[in-house]
């Protein structure tokens, strides 16, 4: 299942619509890293509201994605981690380490606007 990636100004928004397989997650990571340069993006938002589970593979892939995008000169925010998903991640000892998170799309956009003003 391909995740739609929308461009809004200098931000790319990947909105996950349903459960993703490991293969889908890796495809999303690669597509975003690629598109950051094509569109001269300053920020990336990954909306995981609809993601059913964030397990060790998903958390690692999200972290890798954000690190790769940072190396390309843009910032990533993960938005929409649901309460049950957050609960499970903490119980399993999974973290997103230094990756920015925000409550929802609106907060994510506000975070990127602030981050870009500071540059």
């Amino acid at each position, binding site marked *: 299942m391909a995740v739609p990636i929308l461009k809004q100004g200098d931000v790319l928004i990947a909105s996950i619509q349903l459960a993703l397989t490991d293969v889908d997650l890796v495809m999303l990571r690669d597509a975003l890293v690629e598109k950051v340069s094509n569109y001269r993006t300053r920020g990336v938002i990954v909306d995981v509201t609809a993601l*059913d589970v964030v397990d060790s593979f998903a958390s690692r892939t999200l972290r890798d994605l954000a690190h790769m995008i940072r190396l390309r000169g843009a910032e990533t925010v993960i938005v929409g981690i649901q309460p*049950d998903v957050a*609960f499970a991640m903490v*119980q399993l000892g999974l973290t997103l380490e230094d990756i920015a998170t925000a409550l929802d799309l609106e907060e994510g956009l506000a975070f990127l606007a602030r981050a870009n003003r500071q540059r």
Partner: protein
Amino acid sequence: MTPGAANSDVRVPIASSDDVVIARQKGRALAAEIGFSASEATLIAAAISELARNIVKYAGSGEVRLRHDGDGMLLMVARDHGPGIPDVQAALRAGFSTSGGLGMGLPGVRRIADVFEIVSNTGGTTVTVGKYRR
């Protein structure tokens, strides 16, 4: 059906990353059916995801069996006929991985399990995980 009365026994053949998603979705549904909270059901889905992924990654194929023991425990049994885990103790240490992963899969599952057992030899691996409804 009253919570806890379900005596379901679900078997999910695992051979691809699609099957991993199917297994965890069935696990979540079964957990909800036997009265686990939404948070616990998500935790169970994540655990099944780890177990099923290991089958695909290390053995290629196998099976996940999900069962309610009738006493508020959901049993998840992941079985494969792969090469086996050479060092089970190492596989259970956070940060240990032979596949380039972060080694957070199995240790995480063990952390949340009420019952946890691995039987592994050159004929395959069986991981049994049990979780009580709170």
